[in-house]
């Protein structure tokens, strides 16, 4: 028998013992499952959090909409189809995350001069002239807004 350690007590609905799984998900065990929502975190805006959550998250919950369909691609790296080199793709990925040139240079182990050269070259291919436009371009072309920087670079190098 496979012991399911998650169940601390016998199932009140179907009678399964504490080391037995239920045949069907039962209400009592679903209720004892770990919470599906993240616990509150300490943050710099703690005193505003309740109001911010009410306003922004509240709006999201009241009008749930599906995530935007991001473009699917068979490219090796994002932006390849638009002519970005792997390095330029990595730079744009970090711009989309909101990183400054110094942060990008550190993440990619390149000089500031190289970073700015890659940015300028990428801008030309993307048809943008500012960071704000570059971020929106990235959003429209499937770049992640939350991926860890080091991973992005590794992906670009492959």
């Amino acid at each position, binding site marked *: 028998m496979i012991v399911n350690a998650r169940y601390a007590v016998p199932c009140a609905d179907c009678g399964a013992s504490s080391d037995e799984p239920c045949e069907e998900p039962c209400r009592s065990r679903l209720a004892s499952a770990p919470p599906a929502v*993240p616990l509150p*975190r300490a*943050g*710099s*805006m703690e005193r*505003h*959090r309740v*109001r*911010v959550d*009410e*306003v*922004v998250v509240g*709006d*999201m919950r009241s*009008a749930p*909409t*599906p*995530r*935007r369909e*991001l473009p699917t691609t068979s490219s090796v790296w994002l932006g390849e189809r638009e002519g970005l080199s792997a390095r330029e793709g990595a730079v744009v990925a970090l711009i*989309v*995350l*909101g990183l*400054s*040139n*110094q942060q990008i240079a550190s993440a990619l182990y390149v000089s*500031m001069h190289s970073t*700015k050269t890659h*940015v*300028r070259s990428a*801008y*030309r291919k993307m048809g943008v*002239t*500012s*960071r*704000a436009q570059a*971020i*929106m371009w*990235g*959003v429209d072309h499937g770049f*992640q*807004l*939350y*991926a860890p920087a080091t991973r992005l670079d590794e992906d670009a190098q492959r």
Partner: protein
Amino acid sequence: MKNMEPIPETYEAAEEYGPFGTDELGLIDQLTESSARVREVVPECIGITLTSTEDGVSFTLVSSDEEVAVLDAIQYTVGGPCVESVKAEQVLSYTQDDFLGEAGWQLFAQATAAASIASTLTLPILVGGVVAGSINLYATTRDAFTARHEQIAEIFGAWAPGAVTNADLAFSTRTVAEQAPLVLREQVRIQVALGVLMNDQGIDVETARTRLFDAAHRAGVTVAMLAEELASDARDDN
């Protein structure tokens, strides 16, 4: 005559969030080159500020303090028109403590620059018939820009008929330019937050912008603060 140099915040803004465009020559290099041309026409020009209306950000180049001091000294010896205004500024009182630390020196640099300004010229820069920005020039003599509007406008591709003189004798654009790194940092945060909202809620950028700004207003926080929190939450949740 030395070239004008960017104030530290302009340099930082260009380093951290440049380039601002796709030209091979960066913004600071372009401004430095233009300022050198301006000084061929107006040697007394000691400061230039470029403001982008669209981005709400300014970049300033100034002559070195030593050079400004020499220009001032020349005016003292000849009793030039700027002498009286300089005298007026000299009543500003500073204690020794004011000059300890970076803030004190920055204050001193601002005061020195502003005290030396006797005339200014503001020129709008039009793109497609719409004001995209402006260029402000600062000089140590009262008539420095007289009858030179068109030559200067040509250097910057600005609109000479829209010239305004002596509108900023306090050199306030320098103070605005000191905020450039912060302004650009906040703009980036806001764009990232807009992207998060667009992806999470399946909305377009204008709807996202409206929601973000409305939410910040209703919550009583700045848009940049809310943007940072949203982007931070998105990173943590993924």
